[in-house]
C-alpha cells in the first residue's frame, strides 16, 4: 500500500511539474524516482547484512508464567537499520497457533538481544518458529527477508501446587512389597554405615544429628533398601481430540505423580516408548519426567507409539483417554474438567 502511495505521489508530482513547466518540481519528481531506486538497492544491501537467531534452543517454564523469547539480532551494515521485523509463530499443536511480530531498529554494526514476552496457556511443548528476518528500507517501500527459518522449544510445565493425595485413592502398595517401608511404629532398618554426603544422595538420608557438631554432612547407609515405592506409567497410545484434552492429560499426570512423590519414598515413572524408567524422589524429578514425556510426544509420531508395546503389569497406568487403571482394573475416569 505504501509502495502504491509513493508511486502515486511521484506520478502526481511529475504530472504537476510537467503541467506547470516547473523545473524545481520536476527535480522533486526525479528525486522521488531516484529515491525509489536507492531504496531498492538499500534494502538489498541491508538484507545481506542482517541476521536473527534464537538465543536459546529450548526453555522451560510454567504455565501462565510470563516467559520471554530472546533473539539475537545483528547488523553488519555501515548505516542504521531503521526497521526490521521478526515474525514468530507459536505452535502447540495443529489448530492452536499464534503469530507475533517484533518490530525494531538497529544502529550500524550492532548486535542486540531483543525479547518478546509470551504467556503459555497450554501444557506441553510449544514450538516457536522464527521466520527469516524481514528488513525494510528507509522509506519502508521495500522489504526483504534474509536468513533461514529457525525453531526453538518452550517446555511448558504444569503449575506446582499442593498435592492431592486422593488422586490415586488407595494406600496399599500394590508392588514392591518386599521393599516397602515399614509402617510407623515398627523397628527402623539397621544402619550399617555412615559416610560423607555425596551429591546424588537423597536428602532424607542425611544424618542431621551429626550435622549439628560438624560442618560436614553425613548420610546413613541402611542394611538394605527399604523404600516404600510406587510405579506409574503414562500410556501414550492414542491421539488427543483437542488441545484442552492434552492439557488435562499432562496436568493430571503431573498432579498424580507429584502427589505420589509426596506420599511415597519414591515413584518409578515411565511412559510408552521410554528407554528407561525415572525414579522420582522430589517434584523436580517429576519435572524431569514431564520434560522427557513432552520430548517423546513432540519427537515421535502416533504410529511409532503404537508399535512400542503395552504397559507393564503391576503399576498405575494413565492413558490418553484419561482413565486410571491398576492391574487392569479401572480406578477412575477423569475428564477435561478435572484439570486444575
Amino acid at each position, binding site marked *: 500500500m505504501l509502495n502504491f*502511495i509513493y508511486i502515486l505521489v511521484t506520478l502526481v508530482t511529475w504530472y*504537476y511539474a510537467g503541467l506547470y513547466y516547473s523545473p524545481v*518540481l520536476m*527535480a522533486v*519528481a526525479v528525486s522521488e524516482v531516484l529515491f525509489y531506486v536507492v531504496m531498492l538497492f538499500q534494502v538489498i544491501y541491508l538484507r545481506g547484512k542482517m541476521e536473527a537467531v534464537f538465543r536459546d534452543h529450548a526453555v522451560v517454564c510454567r504455565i501462565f508464567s510470563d516467559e520471554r523469547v530472546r533473539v539475537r539480532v545483528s547488523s553488519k551494515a555501515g*548505516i*542504521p537499520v531503521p526497521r526490521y521485523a521478526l515474525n514468530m509463530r507459536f505452535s502447540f499443536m495443529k489448530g492452536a497457533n499464534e503469530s507475533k511480530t517484533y518490530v*525494531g*531498529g538497529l544502529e550500524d554494526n550492532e548486535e542486540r538481544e531483543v525479547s518478546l514476552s509470551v504467556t503459555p496457556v497450554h501444557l506441553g511443548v510449544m514450538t516457536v518458529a522464527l521466520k527469516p528476518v524481514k528488513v525494510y528500507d528507509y522509506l519502508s517501500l521495500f522489504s526483504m527477508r534474509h536468513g533461514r527459518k529457525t525453531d526453538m522449544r518452550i517446555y511448558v510445565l504444569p503449575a506446582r501446587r499442593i498435592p492431592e493425595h486422593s488422586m490415586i485413592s488407595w494406600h496399599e502398595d500394590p508392588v514392591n512389597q518386599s521393599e516397602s517401608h515399614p509402617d510407623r511404629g515398627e523397628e527402623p532398618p539397621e544402619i550399617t554405615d555412615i559416610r560423607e554426603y555425596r551429591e546424588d544422595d537423597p536428602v532424607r538420608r542425611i544424618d542431621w544429628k551429626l550435622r549439628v557438631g560438624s560442618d560436614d554432612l553425613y548420610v546413613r547407609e541402611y542394611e538394605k533398601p527399604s523404600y516404600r515405592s510406587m510405579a506409574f506409567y503414562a500410556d501414550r497410545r492414542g491421539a488427543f481430540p483437542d488441545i484442552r484434552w492434552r492439557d488435562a492429560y499432562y496436568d493430571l499426570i503431573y498432579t498424580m505423580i507429584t502427589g505420589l512423590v509426596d506420599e511415597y519414598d519414591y515413584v518409578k515413572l515411565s511412559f510408552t516408548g521410554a528407554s528407561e524408567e525415572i525414579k522420582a524422589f522430589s517434584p523436580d524429578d517429576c519435572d524431569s519426567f514431564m520434560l522427557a514425556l513432552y520430548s517423546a510426544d513432540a519427537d515421535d509420531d502416533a504410529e511409532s507409539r503404537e508399535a512400542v508395546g503395552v504397559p507393564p503389569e503391576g503399576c498405575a497406568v494413565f492413558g490418553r483417554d484419561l482413565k486410571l487403571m491398576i492391574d487392569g482394573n479401572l480406578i477412575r475416569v477423569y475428564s477435561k474438567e478435572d484439570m486444575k
Partner: protein
Amino acid sequence: MENDHMSPLVMIIPGLAVAGIYLFLGSMGGVGFIPVVSAIPAVFAAFVMWLLYEKFDRIGFLMSFCAIAVMGAVFVFLCRPVWQQMVMLPYALFINESSDPVDVTLGVMFLMFMLTILVFLTENVLHIHWFMYMFMSWILVVSPVVGMNAGVTTVFLFTAFNMVLWAMYGMSARRLMPTRYHTDERYRERVVLKTGVVMGIAAVFVFSTALMTVRLTGSGLYNVSLAMESGLKNLLASFGIGDNGISGTINRGNVYPLSTRALEIRTSQQPEGSIYLRGFSGGDYESIRGVWEENTDVYIYSAAMRRGALPGDVSGDYIDGIYYQAASDRSETIDMDVVRLEDQSMMFRPYLSVLNENTGLAYDTYSLSFTEMRGPYLEGSRNGAYREFEKVYKGLADTAYTAVPEKGLEGVRGLIDAYDLTGDEDPMIISALIYAILDNNAEYSTRPGFTPVNKDPVEYFLTESHRGYCQHYASAAVLMYRMCGVPARYAAGYVVGPDDFTDNGDGTWRVSVTGAMGHAWPEIFMEGYGWVPIEVTPASYAPDTYPGLDASFLEGLFANGGGIESMKRSKYAFTSDELAPGFGVHAGILLATGVMALSLIISIRKRRRGKVVSKGNALSREYAGYVRNLHDKALGVGYDGSEKGFPSALAVEMSEFEVSDPSDLALCTDAARRAVLNASFGDRDVSKEDRERVRAFGKKVRELIRKSRESKKA
C-alpha cells in the same frame, strides 16, 4: 509527569520546515523583508521551547506555552505595525504584482516566531508528524497553481524535510517504530536520529543528481507528463468524457483535440481556401479569469436603430448579415448544408454567408450560401445604404470593441507601449506590429502548461510562459488591437481546409468537422470590409486566410514590420536554460554540501573511534599499573595479567594472605581482565562499568598488598 529528555538533534526536523517556509516567503516577489534579522525570532523561539521542555514537567511546559501564546497575542494587539503587516502578508503574497515589494519584516518575524512554536509543538511534543508533512506537501503542490515560483533551495528543504520525516517516523510513527515493543526509548531515539541524518545526506545527493538530470534532459521529462495527460484525456474520451465545445473561455491548460465529430457539412463545390466557421465572437474581456463575453452587437444594433441608421430591408441576424448580404450579390456562391452532431447552442457559419433555411431554433440542420471573397465587395446595388450604416456601426464599434481591462494586463500593455504609436496607424500596420510582437514573445505549442489561477492567461502567455496555441494568440492579438485603438473581436469555431473535403461523386463535397479542427482567431473591423478574420496563430498562418486582402502585400508588411524599425527584434527562442534556470549552480552547491556533510560525519566517526581507542588504552594502562604493583610486591609473579588463568592463579596465590573471599578476588580480577580485553579489541565503547571493574580490581590489589605487608610483619 516528567518530560522525556530531548536531544537537541531533534530540532533538525522543525528546523528544516521553518527554514523552508522562510526561504519560500523570501522567494515571493511581492514580499519584502530584511533577511537574517527576520529569522532571529525563529531561532530564539526554538531555543526557548527546548529550554522550557527540558526544565519543566509536562504541565509546566503546557502552562509556559499558554503564557507565551497569551503574551504573543497581547504583543500583536498592542503593536499595531505587527498585525498590520500580518494582514498585509496575504496581499503581498497573492495579490501584489508590482515590482515594488511590500515591506513586511515585522510580520514575517512574528510569523516565524509563531511557526517555530507550532512546529516544535506538533513535531516534538505532540508527535503529530503527518500535520507538517501534509502542510509542506500542500505548499509544494499549491505554489505553482497560484503562480508562486519557489526557489531551488526552498524546494530542496521541503523535499528533504518530507523524506527525512518519512524515514524517521513514516506515515505513522507507531507503525514504523512501535514504542510498545521498545523498553529503551533512548535507544529508539538514537536509531531514529541516525536514520534521519543518513536520509538527509542521501537527500542532498539525490536532489542534486535530480537537478542535473533535469538540466541535461531538457524538455524530455516534461514530455513524459504531457504524454500522461494525453493518455488520460484519450482514456476519458473513449468513455465519452471530454469537452470539445467552442466557447469564449481561454483554456488554462494543454489542448488535446478530440476526434469526435461536431458537424457534418455538404457543399455544392470544393472551396478554394480555408473556411472559417465562426460559432462564437467575443465582446468584453474579463481578465484573470480569461473569459470573453458574448459580443455586444445587439446594443450597437439598438443604438443604430435609435439613430435611424439601420437599413429597413435587412432582417434576421442583421449585424453581421450586412456583409453577407452584400456578398450575396456576387455570382460565385457555394451552397452548404450543415448537420450539427454535438449538443451545442451555436450556429457555425462561414464569413459572408446567408442563412437559407434552418429546421428549428436549435439549428440542428441548416442551409447556407456563402461566397469566398478576395477583394473589396461593397460595390453592389445596396452600397449606399450599407455604407451609411457602416459609418454608424464603426463609430459605435470604436468604443465597444476597443475596451481593455485596466488590471491584469500590464505586461501586454508594456509590449505595445514599447513602440511609439501615434494612434493613426493603418490597421494593417498594426497587424504587422502585433504579428511581430507575437513572433518575438511566444512560441506555438499545444502543450504550454497550466496557467496559475491568479494570473491572466494572456498576460502569462506573453510575459512568462511564452507558449500557447490559437486561443492565446487570438486573445493576445485582440487585446493588442484594442490597445492600439483598432476594433477587434475574439472569434472561435472551426477552420476547414479545402483538402479536408471529399468528393461524393455526385458533384457535391462532404466534410466531417471534428474537434481537431477547432480554432480561435481575431477579427478586426475594417471599413469597406467589415469584420475581417486575421490569422495570427503560426501553425495556421496562410496568406490566403485574410479574405479581401492581398497576400503579397501582407507578406511584405509582416516581413519588414510595417515600416516600424523598432519591431525588428530577435525572435524569442527557448533554450534548455529556461527550463532549468541556474540548476547547474544549485546542483553543484548541494553536491558540495552533501560531500561536506559526509566528510564531517566520517571525520566525527573517526575521531570517536580514536577516542574509544584512547579510552581503551587508558584503561589498559591503569590495569597494567595494578598488575605491575603486584609484581613489585612479589605477588602474582609469572603472570602478566592478560592470561585466562590469571584470576584463579592470583586467587590461589593470595589465599595464604587470608583474603576474605578468594572466589570474589577471582571474579573481580576476571571482570577487570575482560573489561580491558574489550576496551582493546572489542567492538563497543569503553563503558562506565568497564572502568568500575578495573577500579574494583585496583582496590583489591591495594588490599592484597596491605595484607601481604601485614603477613610479612607477622
